[in-house]
């Protein structure tokens, strides 16, 4: 078992390095002993609540029983890094992956920071550290065994050479390993002028080029090694962030404003007879009820909410007007442009045949099954400890420090498992942590804040609505010769903690903007310009920032790819060409071409243009259709093929089969990739068919699972997976992206079946009906 079994013990400032060290190493600790004790080095470092990332044992601790502790700032968010990281380390060290235990995400006992979306960068870090350590161990073994390094080989942690054998555990016992891990970068610090209100969120990077194994020699990478977090989750042994229970801890329930902009008039009261242990705590517009008894906190909070008075506010446009609200914004210049502006505009102006279309989507949200939860303990000695499930522990640490106006060094963040985040905590802000920290400071006790589902769905950050204007010039054969996209969206990187906004405490603001997220696949198009325009949050100037926009799984691409690939499908139909043939005619990228062929074959794709010859837009019997889309992202290639049936008279659309192809360079773990691909299809279908955050003029109205609907098991189609692995392109990101392949393929399949374009999602029966009747 190689997952961390988290201990919610309270770190002690100044001695945490020793405690954490002894705790993890225990009596068995021998490690790569260094002349100056580890503790002293850590304490001497700039930040005493951190460990020194230049020390190899901060990353990898080899113990006398030949087990290994690996530490990473990245965390398991459900994409399998508790499988991938041990695989990678094991590969370079030549040990068995099951000997490796991961400690993840704790700011005081992991070296590198960073966020989980950057799991490949984090993997490169641990891979390089393992490679450096491997070299140092070989040097040590050569000296000990009196043979040249070149004569040594290592299998399963046993070094063999010159007729002798020694295990890594024996080798490092009492030995000094002369090794310094080269690193660059800094941990995040508050910076209100920075893009997300912080300095870099990337954490530290291990530099240099230690000798690493060639893919052809991989023994562990490329196998379906199981993810280490799973057994404890299945048996109920995992300590989740919601399970942290400290002595003297208070349970809190928040009393939120009645609208997204209301301010407090008067706080409600608690009937002390009915709720003897409950108390109201307030700072600014932050109102909470705390009690040592969770059920009493729940009931008392309801009673306080019923009697608390708030001002009226109605500053939202209503979700039905969201496109209008985006269009009404006066956009200046693009936040980012790619391609050549002048020549593309010129080519479009002089074109004899042009096509254009507009695509749009409303707000959607991350919507985890488990609402936000956090525990904070603001100690009398000034140390703030946060127990979190944020996917950006170091960023959260800096943000909490900023909220409380304390140095970053005074904040310790301990990470534990929880419900998936799907991006909402990537910048370390959204969540219950600020609530908990503020309440702990006010009460002087450890406080656990559990958001409710309606609260989470009303107040957590959201993936913003967007509008895309696409245009192209085509030649006589229908080939695209010039392409222009202009994409408009509210802010997508606003991680300000709600608790700080309500309490009127500092919350480093971030800059609205946007970026060209989709990588350009169509290199045979002569002229192209991609523009992305950002604007502030909708109702951004209201008291708490309005609809705080945030990134969500496959951010940017999930929006932009719907427009790009929808438009390519339209162009293919205009040209009367099969949509796969059309794509093949616009690219020379052999990786994309190979994957298109492989996925088309797996889906039994029939080469013909869309719509289908039997397409119709009325009738009470089902008709079928199929559609395709592609994407390139983070050195991974994707092809999605949807097959649907739709009953025109009802607008009810069913996806019957989805074939998804992926070529992410070297596949690290085929089964985890299979799981991530299939689950990504599920999330993508959910977005394509069902999801939309609704709001009226004053508040979000989709605040539970009946009003914010996501896909159920009964709605999943047959999902067919195609994986291509290759040794010559490094590693690509396969853990997310799949969701972005679904909406364009499903919309294309609807066109194939009916001849009607859907340029907006979700494809609900009422929307599909309205399109077919138009």
């Amino acid at each position: 078992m190689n997952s961390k079994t988290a201990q919610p013990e309270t770190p002690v400032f100044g001695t945490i390095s020793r405690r954490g060290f002894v705790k993890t190493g225990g009596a068995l600790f021998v490690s790569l002993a260094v002349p100056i004790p580890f503790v002293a080095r850590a304490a001497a470092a700039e930040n005493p609540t951190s460990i020194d990332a230049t020390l190899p044992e901060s990353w990898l601790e080899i113990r006398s029983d030949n087990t290994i502790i690996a530490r990473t700032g990245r965390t398991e968010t459900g994409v399998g890094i508790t499988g991938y990281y041990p695989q990678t380390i094991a590969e370079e060290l030549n040990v068995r992956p099951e000997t490796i235990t991961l400690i993840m995400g704790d700011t005081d006992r992991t070296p590198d920071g960073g966020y989980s979306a950057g799991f490949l960068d984090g993997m490169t870090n641990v891979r390089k550290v393992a490679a450096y350590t491997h070299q140092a161990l070989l040097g040590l073994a050569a000296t000990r065994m009196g043979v040249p390094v070149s004569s040594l080989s290592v299998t399963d942690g046993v070094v063999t050479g010159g007729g002798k054998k020694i295990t890594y555990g024996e080798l490092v016992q009492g030995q000094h390993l002369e090794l310094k891990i080269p690193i660059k970068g800094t941990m995040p610090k508050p910076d209100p002028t920075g893009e997300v209100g912080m300095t870099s969120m990337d954490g530290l990077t291990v530099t240099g080029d230690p000798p690493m194994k060639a893919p052809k020699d991989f023994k562990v990478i490329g196998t379906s090694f199981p993810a280490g977090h799973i057994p404890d989750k299945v048996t109920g042994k995992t300590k989740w962030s919601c399970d942290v229970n400290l002595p003297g801890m208070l349970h809190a329930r928040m009393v939120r404003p009645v609208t997204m902009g209301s301010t407090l008039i008067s706080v409600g009261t608690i009937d002390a007879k009915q709720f003897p242990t409950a108390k109201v705590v307030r700072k600014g517009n932050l109102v909470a009820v705390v009690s040592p008894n969770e059920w009493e906190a729940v009931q008392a909070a309801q009673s306080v909410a019923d009697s608390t008075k708030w001002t009226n506010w109605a500053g939202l446009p209503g979700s039905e007007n969201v496109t209008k609200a985006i269009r009404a914004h006066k956009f200046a210049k693009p936040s980012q442009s790619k391609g050549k502006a002048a020549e593309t505009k010129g080519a479009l102006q002089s074109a004899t045949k042009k096509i254009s279309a507009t695509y749009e989507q409303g707000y959607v949200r991350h919507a985890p099954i488990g609402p936000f939860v956090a525990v904070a303990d603001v100690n009398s000695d000034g140390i703030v400890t946060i127990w979190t499930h944020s996917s950006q522990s170091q960023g959260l640490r800096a943000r909490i420090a900023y909220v409380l106006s304390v140095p970053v060094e005074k904040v310790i963040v301990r990470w534990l498992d929880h419900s998936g985040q799907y991006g909402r905590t990537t910048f370390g802000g959204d969540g219950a942590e600020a609530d908990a920290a503020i309440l702990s400071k006010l009460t002087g006790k450890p406080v656990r804040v559990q958001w409710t589902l309606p609260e989470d769905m009303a107040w957590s950050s959201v993936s913003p609505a967007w509008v895309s204007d696409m245009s192209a010039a085509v030649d006589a054969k229908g080939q695209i010769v010039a392409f222009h996209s202009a994409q408009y969206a509210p802010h997508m990187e606003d991680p300000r903690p709600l608790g700080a906004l309500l309490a009127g405490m500092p919350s480093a603001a971030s800059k609205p903007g946007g970026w060209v997220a989709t990588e350009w696949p169509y290199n045979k198009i002569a002229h192209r310009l991609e523009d992305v325009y950002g604007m502030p949050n909708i109702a951004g100037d209201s008291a708490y920032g309005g609809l705080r926009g945030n990134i969500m799984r496959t951010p940017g691409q999930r929006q932009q790819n719907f427009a790009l690939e929808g438009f390519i499908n339209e162009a293919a139909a205009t040209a009367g060409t099969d949509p796969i043939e059309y794509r093949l005619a616009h690219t020379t990228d052999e990786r994309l071409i190979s994957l298109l062929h492989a996925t088309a074959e797996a889906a039994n794709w029939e080469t013909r243009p869309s719509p289908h010859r039997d397409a119709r837009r009325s009738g009470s019997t089902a008709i079928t259709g199929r559609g395709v889309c592609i994407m390139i992202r983070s050195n991974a290639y994707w092809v999605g093929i949807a097959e649907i049936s739709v009953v025109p008279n009802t607008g009810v659309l069913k996806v019957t089969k989805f074939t998804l192809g992926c070529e992410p360079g070297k596949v690290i773990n085929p089964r985890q990739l299979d799981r991530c691909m299939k689950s990504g299809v599920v999330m993508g279908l959910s977005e394509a068919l069902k999801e939309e955050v609704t709001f009226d003029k004053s508040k979000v109205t989709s605040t539970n699972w009946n009003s914010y609907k996501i896909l159920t098991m009964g709605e999943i189609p047959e999902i067919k997976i195609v994986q291509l692995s290759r040794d010559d392109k490094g590693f690509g990101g396969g853990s997310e992206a799949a969701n972005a392949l679904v909406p364009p393929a499903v919309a294309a399949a609807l066109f194939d079946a009916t001849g009607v374009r859907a340029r907006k999602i979700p494809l609900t029966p009422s929307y599909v009906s309205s399109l077919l009747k138009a």
Partner: protein
Amino acid sequence: MTNELTLSVNGVKQTVTIDPDTPLIFVLRNELKLTGPRMGCGMAQCGACAVLLNGKEIRSCITPVSGVAGQEVTTIEGLPAVWAAEKGLSADEAEKTLHPVQQAWIDEQVPQCGYCQSGMMIVAAQLLAKNPNPSVEEIKDAFTNAPPSPHLCRCGTYAAIIDAVQRAGKAMRGEAL
């Protein structure tokens, strides 16, 4: 406002002194330290809190603790014992044996974040106890259409769950995996 209630959870009788209206989930988690069932929606819409009551799924987030007194509650922590009893395993064997549903969840690598999976395994255990060889449609039906709500997974592990239920069924029927 508090009563003394005797609960039987995972085969162990325990007495708690508590407000009888307290939702079962708070008693399981905070009093009995059984953290398998988890708080999701709090309104019986998602299934994360599901436990078995006399072998039938209930949602512990909306069930007052008084309603289960004297009856047998099973959480995922208690599933191995259910299987051991059914198969008449010795104490030694039982110690080493998970419920086939749990084993299948590991073998098929079902959990992604894993938050909803406790409730998912509860449904699977209930389904397979009644129907040891369910079709894909029957599995989908059990996780989607049984009241009070579908069991929701935001990570999207539904396909893996179907694989795992079929695998667990095979194991329970004594077939080769």
